[in-house]
C-alpha cells in the first residue's frame, strides 16, 4: 500500500515543478485579443485594434460642473495647462481661443497646399475671375467681416473654404471662451492619453493625474466628471478586484467554517485544497503550453470551474474516515470526472480563444485534481482520520428521501413547463450584443453619452479604412476616396467624414497643388485680366502675389509641421502605423442625430466600387456584435455537442437506459429550471451563463451518478454529497450578488443550479424499496 502512493507523490511533485516552470514561461494578457478569433477577418482584426489602441480608446472626456460659468472656465484653463505638461497626455484641448487662433493661422499660412480647390484651372484668368467675384459677393454677407481682412492676401477665398469644412465637423458649444455643454452648465475638456486604451495601468495613471491636477481647483462647488474607455477600464478593474476580494474572502470563510465543522482538522482543510491548487496550476500550465498566451478571462472563468475539485477531497475524506473500502466509491467519481472532461473537451475547437482556453484549462485541471485526490492525497493523510461522523445527518437525509420522492410529479411538471417556456422564448433568450459583457454601469454609460454628445465626439461606429504600404500611400488612398464620399454626402447618405488628408495631403497632391501655382510674373499678368469688370484693383493684391510665391518655395508639409496645431491630433488618430504598413481611417458621420447610416449596404458597395485598393467599409458595432453573436452560437453548438458526448459516455458506462435516464434527467432538469428562472427574471443569457450551465452539468453529474449507482446512497455518502453541495452553493451563490456581469452570470446560474441538481437527483432516483425484494 505504501510504495505506490510514494511514487505517486514524487510524480506529483515533479509534475508541479514542470508546471511551475511552464508558468514562468507563460505570457499573461488581459487585453481584448481574447475576443479575437483564431483566424480573424480583416474587419475583426481592425475592430480589436481600434478597441485596444485606436484613437477612440485613448480619449478621456473631462467635465467640470457646479459653481459659476466663469469659475468653471478658469478651472478648465488651469486644468488644461497642467495636463498639457503632464507626461501621461499627448494632447489636451478645452476650446481656448488661443489654440483656435493658432489653428486658423496655420490654415491660412498653408492654404495653397491644403485647399482642394487649388488646381491649374483655379489660377487661370477665368478661374481667378470667378473665385474673386465670389469673394467680393461674399463681402455683402453679414459674415463678410472676416473675409474683408483676408481678401487682400486670399482673394480666391481658400481660407474660408477650409474653415467651412472644419466648421462642418461640429464644434462643441463654448462659454467664457472654453468648451461647454449646450446648456452652458458644464465646462468640457478632451484629453488624449499617451497610453493605449488596453494599457490599464497607463490609463489608471492618466486618470489619477487628472484627479490630482483638479484637486486644488475643487474649491467651492466645482466637481470633476470623467469618462472614456480608459476610465471604464480602470473602474472595471477596481470593481472586479474589490468584488473578487470581498466575495471570495466571504465565500472562503464560510466554506472553511463548514469544512472545519466536518473535518474537525485544519490540516485536513489545507490538504483538501491540494487537488484544487494542483489542478489550477496544471490547467494554467497546459493553456500556456498549448496556446502560448494565457488570457485573464480564462483564469477568471477557470478558477471558478476548478471549484468542483474541492468536492473530490470531500468525498475522499468523508469516505476514508470509514473503514470501508473505497472500491465502490472511486468508479463513481471517475465517471463523474470523465463526464465533466467530455463536456469541456467539446469547447477545445472553439474559434473564441477564451472558450477554447477554458476548455483546455478545465479539462486538464479537473483530471489533475481527480488524480491528485486519488493517488497523492491518501499518502498524505494522517494514519487515523478524525473526521466528524456525518452518518447521523446522512440517516436523517435518507429518512427524508421518500417524502422528497413524492415531489417527483410536481418537479417533472415544473421541468416540462420550464422546457416549454424556454422553447417559446428562444428568440429573446440570448443577449447577442457584446455590450452585455461590459462591466460599465448604466449610470456611467449615460454620463459618457452625455459628455460625448456635448463634445461632438460621437462614438466611431462607421469607418472607411484604406490600407497601404506607406503613410503617404495611405493618405493618397484617402484622397482618392474623397470624390466617392463627397458624392455620398451630396446624396445625404452620410453627414460627412473626417480624413487625415485634409490636414496633411499626400506628397503627390501637395506637389500637384504647388505646380498649379503660377510664378509671380504670370500671376500678375493673369490677375490684371481676371480683375476686368470687378471693383478691385490689382495693386491691392500684392500680399496675394507674395503669398503664392512663398507657397511655391516652401517644402512640402510633413506631420512635424502640424505639431503646434490641434490637427496633429486628428492626423495621429486618422493615420496609423500597423505591423504590415499604414492605414488611413475615415470615420463617417451619420446624417441624422440618431447616429445611424441609412443604407449601409449601398455604402459598402459604393466604397468597393470606388476602385481604391485596400479600402473597405466597416461598421464597428455590427462587427463586434456579429463576432460576439458568432461566439454565442458557437458556444451553444459546442455545448450541445458536449452534452451529446456526455450522454453517450454515460450510456456506455452505465449500460442501462434506466440508470442513464436517472443521471441525465436531474442534469437536464436543473439546467432547464435555472434557465427558465433566469428568463422569468428577465435576464438575457450571455456566454457566461452558458458556461455556468455547463458547470451545473459537470458538478451535478457527480451527485446524479451516486444516486443512479446506488439507488439510495448510504448515509455517509449522502452526507458528503450534501457537504460538497453546500460548499458549491456558497462559493458560487455569493458571486451572484456581484455587480460585475462575468461574476454575476456564473453566480446566478451555479448558485441555485447545484442544489437543484442534487435535489433532482434525489427526487428522481428510484426508491430503495423498489430495488429490494419486498
Amino acid at each position, binding site marked *: 500500500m505504501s510504495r505506490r502512493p510514494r511514487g505517486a507523490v514524487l510524480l506529483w511533485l515533479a509534475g508541479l515543478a514542470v508546471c511551475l516552470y511552464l508558468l514562468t514561461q507563460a505570457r499573461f494578457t488581459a487585453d481584448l485579443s481574447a475576443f479575437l478569433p483564431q483566424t480573424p477577418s480583416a474587419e475583426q482584426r481592425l475592430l480589436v485594434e481600434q478597441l485596444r489602441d485606436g484613437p477612440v480608446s485613448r480619449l478621456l472626456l473631462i467635465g467640470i460642473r457646479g459653481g459659476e460659468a466663469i469659475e468653471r472656465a478658469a478651472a478648465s484653463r488651469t486644468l488644461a495647462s497642467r495636463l498639457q505638461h503632464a507626461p501621461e497626455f499627448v494632447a489636451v484641448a478645452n476650446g481656448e481661443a488661443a489654440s483656435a487662433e493658432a489653428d486658423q493661422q496655420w490654415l491660412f499660412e498653408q492654404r495653397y497646399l491644403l485647399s482642394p480647390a487649388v488646381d491649374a484651372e483655379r489660377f487661370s484668368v477665368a478661374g481667378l475671375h470667378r473665385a474673386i467675384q*465670389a469673394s467680393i459677393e461674399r*463681402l*455683402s454677407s453679414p*459674415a463678410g467681416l472676416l473675409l*474683408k481682412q483676408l481678401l487682400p492676401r486670399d482673394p480666391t477665398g481658400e481660407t474660408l473654404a477650409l474653415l467651412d469644412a472644419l466648421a462642418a465637423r461640429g464644434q462643441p*458649444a463654448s462659454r467664457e471662451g472654453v468648451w461647454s455643454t*449646450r446648456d452652458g452648465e458644464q465646462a468640457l475638456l478632451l484629453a488624449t492619453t499617451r497610453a493605449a486604451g488596453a494599457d490599464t495601468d497607463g490609463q489608471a495613471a492618466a486618470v489619477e493625474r487628472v484627479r490630482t491636477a483638479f484637486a486644488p481647483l475643487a474649491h467651492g462647488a466645482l466637481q470633476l466628471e470623467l469618462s472614456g474607455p480608459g476610465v471604464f477600464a480602470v473602474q472595471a478593474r477596481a470593481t472586479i478586484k474589490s468584488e473578487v476580494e470581498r466575495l471570495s474572502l466571504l465565500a472562503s470563510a464560510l466554506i472553511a467554517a463548514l469544512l472545519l465543522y466536518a473535518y474537525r482538522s485544519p490540516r485536513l482543510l489545507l490538504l483538501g485544497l491540494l487537488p484544487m491548487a494542483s489542478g489550477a496550476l496544471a490547467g494554467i500550465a497546459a493553456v500556456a503550453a498549448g496556446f502560448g498566451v494565457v488570457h485573464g478571462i480564462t483564469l477568471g472563468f477557470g478558477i471558478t470551474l476548478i471549484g468542483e475539485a474541492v468536492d473530490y477531497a470531500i468525498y475522499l475524506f468523508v469516505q476514508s474516515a470509514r473503514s470501508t473500502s473505497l472500491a465502490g466509491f472511486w468508479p463513481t467519481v471517475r465517471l463523474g470526472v470523465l463526464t465533466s472532461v467530455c463536456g469541456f473537451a467539446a469547447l477545445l475547437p472553439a474559434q473564441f480563444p477564451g472558450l477554447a482556453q477554458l476548455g483546455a484549462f478545465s479539462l486538464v485541471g479537473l483530471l489533475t485534481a481527480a488524480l491528485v485526490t486519488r493517488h497523492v492525497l491518501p499518502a498524505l493523510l494522517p494514519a487515523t482520520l478524525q473526521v466528524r461522523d456525518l452518518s447521523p445527518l446522512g440517516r436523517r437525509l435518507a429518512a427524508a428521501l421518500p417524502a422528497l420522492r413524492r415531489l417527483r410529479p410536481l418537479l417533472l411538471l415544473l421541468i416540462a413547463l420550464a422546457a416549454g417556456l424556454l422553447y417559446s422564448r428562444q428568440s429573446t433568450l440570448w443577449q447577442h450584443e457584446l455590450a452585455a459583457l461590459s462591466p460599465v454601469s448604466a449610470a456611467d454609460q449615460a454620463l459618457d453619452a452625455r459628455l460625448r454628445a456635448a463634445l461632438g465626439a460621437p462614438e466611431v461606429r462607421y469607418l472607411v479604412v484604406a490600407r497601404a504600404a506607406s503613410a503617404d500611400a495611405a493618405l493618397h488612398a484617402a484622397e482618392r476616396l474623397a470624390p466617392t464620399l463627397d458624392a455620398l454626402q451630396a446624396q445625404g447618405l452620410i453627414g460627412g467624414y473626417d480624413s487625415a488628408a485634409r490636414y496633411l495631403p499626400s506628397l503627390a497632391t501637395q506637389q500637384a497643388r504647388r505646380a498649379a501655382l503660377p510664378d509671380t510674373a504670370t500671376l500678375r499678368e493673369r490677375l490684371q485680366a481676371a480683375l476686368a469688370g470687378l471693383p478691385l484693383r490689382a495693386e491691392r493684391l500684392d500680399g496675394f502675389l507674395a503669398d503664392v510665391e512663398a507657397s511655391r518655395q516652401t517644402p512640402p508639409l510633413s506631420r512635424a509641421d502640424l505639431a503646434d496645431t490641434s490637427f496633429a491630433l486628428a492626423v495621429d488618430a486618422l493615420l496609423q502605423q500597423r505591423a504590415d504598413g499604414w492605414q488611413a481611417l475615415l470615420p463617417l458621420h451619420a446624417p441624422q442625430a440618431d447616429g445611424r447610416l441609412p443604407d449601409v449596404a449601398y455604402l459598402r458597395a459604393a466604397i468597393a466600387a470606388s476602385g481604391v485598393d485596400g479600402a473597405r467599409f466597416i461598421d464597428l458595432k455590427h462587427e463586434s456584435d456579429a463576432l460576439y453573436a458568432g461566439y454565442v452560437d458557437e458556444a451553444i453548438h459546442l455545448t450541445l455537442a458536449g452534452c451529446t458526448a456526455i450522454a453517450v459516455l454515460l450510456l456506455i458506462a452505465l449500460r442501462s437506459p434506466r440508470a442513464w435516464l436517472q443521471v441525465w434527467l436531474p442534469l437536464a432538469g436543473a439546467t432547464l429550471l435555472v434557465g427558465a428562472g433566469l428568463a422569468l427574471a428577465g435576464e438575457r443569457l450571455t456566454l457566461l451563463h452558458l458556461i455556468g450551465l455547463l458547470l451545473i452539468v459537470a458538478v451535478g453529474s457527480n451527485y446524479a451518478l451516486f444516486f443512479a449507482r446506488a439507488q439510495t446512497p448510504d448515509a455517509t455518502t449522502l452526507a458528503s454529497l450534501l457537504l460538497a453541495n453546500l460548499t458549491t452553493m456558497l462559493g458560487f451563490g455569493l458571486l451572484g450578488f456581484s455587480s460585475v456581469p462575468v461574476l454575476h452570470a456564473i453566480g446566478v446560474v451555479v448558485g441555485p443550479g447545484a442544489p437543484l441538481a442534487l435535489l433532482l437527483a434525489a427526487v428522481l432516483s428510484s426508491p430503495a424499496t423498489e430495488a429490494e425484494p419486498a
Partner: protein
Amino acid sequence: MRRRLLSALLLTVAALAHAEDWTLTQLMAALAANPGGRAHFVERKDIALLDAPVEARGELFYRPPDHLERRTQTPQPETLILDGEMLTLERDGRRLQLSLAERPQIAAFTDSIRRTLAGDRHALERAYRLTLSGEAALWTLRLVPDDEALREIIQQITISGNQGEVRSIAILQADGDRSLMTITPEPAP
C-alpha cells in the same frame, strides 16, 4: 386678415405724441407695439478695399420679441436666422449654427438691432450709449458701444425710422467702412 406693420392703434398713439417732443420712452413704446412682419431690404456697403460699393437685396422677417430673419436673394442666396440665443447661417446648402452666448460681440451687435425693433430700452442701455434726435415721423437713434472690444469693430450704429417702424440701419465700422440698409415694408398684398 391683412397684416400691416403699422397698426391702427399705433397711428393713434403716434398722433397723440406728435404734439410733444419725441422722446426715447415714446419711441421705445411705439417700437414695442410693432407686431412684426415682412419687409424688403437693400444693403449697400462701402468698403475701402473696393472701388465700388457692394449691394445685397432680399427680405427681412421680424417676429417680436427676438426672431429676426434676413433672407438675401442677390448676389448670393443666403439666410441668416436669429432666434433667441441661436444664430443660424445657411449658404450653399450648408448650415452653420452657433449660440450667441458663445460670441458676446456678435450678440451685442445683433442685439443692437433686435432690441431696437423690440423697443427694449433697458437692454439697449446696458451695452450702448443712446442718442435720439428728430421727430416722430423721422427719428434717428444713434448707438455707440460701451464695450471697448466691440468699439474696435463698430464705431456706431444709426437707426432711423418713422413712428414704430424702422426704415434704415447704418453701421460705421472702426476702419471707416460703412453700410446702409434701407428697409421698405412689404406692401399689403
